[in-house]
């Protein structure tokens, strides 16, 4: 019994993002140096790249928060010294 009849995909008017996948000749380019590196070890380096991006992004976020704290500290110090300094 067929519940959902599978329709043959019409590729004549396919949008750019799926033409790659409906065509049979993938891959079309020989792997370049970057791909040879990243595809080694069953693509584990891709995971490494993703984790590093997240790590660097989160670290940058922490550093930005720290810079805000520094600025506030300097401001506070300047205000205090202004108040206590004699006229």
């Amino acid at each position, binding site marked *: 019994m067929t519940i959902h009849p599978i329709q043959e995909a019409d590729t004549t008017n396919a949008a750019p*993002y799926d033409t790659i996948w409906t065509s049979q000749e993938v891959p079309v380019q020989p792997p370049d140096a970057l791909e040879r590196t990243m*595809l080694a070890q069953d693509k584990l380096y891709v995971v490494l790249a993703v984790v590093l991006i997240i790590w660097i992004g989160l670290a940058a976020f922490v550093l930005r928060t720290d810079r805000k704290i520094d600025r506030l500290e300097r401001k506070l110090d300047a205000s205090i010294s202004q108040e206590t300094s004699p006229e």
Partner: protein
Amino acid sequence: MPVSGKTYRRIRNIVLAWLTLVALAGFLLDIPRINILEHTARNLYFHVPMWFTMMAAFFVSAWRSGQYLGSRDPLRDTQALEAARVGAAFGVLGLATGIVWARFTWYVGQGIWWNFDPKQTMAAVQLLIYGAYFTLRSSVEEPEKRGRIAAVYNLFAAACVPFLLYALPRQMDSLHPGAEGNPAFSDITHPTMRVVFYAAVIGFIGLFWVFYTQRVRLATLKERVEDAFRT
């Protein structure tokens, strides 16, 4: 303050230890090998939680904006702003990691980084909508007026999330799971991977909470300092 310093430090330490375990599990546990994906299936633990965290952050932000409209308490406005900021940071990380993942799986042999996959495109649009929120805030000087306008806009921005990230991409030919013709996440994911994945989502949302609390404390402190020395 909503939480005491002691509670904050305790949750922060738990979150950091938790995420360390998630990273270890993410790399060390065995996963089924699938063509094209291979080891990059592990990105499920790192790339996807970025988006879950972003959505949680935007939900918190919208919630605080709603509270601001009800109470006109400046703290609520600060909370909405900081939640949106942290959420946008997670969104940018999700986009960047997605580009790298796609380059070496979907677009291998094509040499392209970006091909307007509907989900990617809509996520970028969503980030631009939040970019407009920050720009809008900086264009109004008067705090009361700024808070009100920003809160109303923020509710609109949050209302776009389910449409841009779920409804639309699922109607189109996206390569992401759950789109037209692709099975949804829950149908295809190995049980071990699901456990680590949910742990990662909880961990990163916890990390959002840490950053968010930190920045709200800082912003409140800044207000207090400015008030104290405004003479």
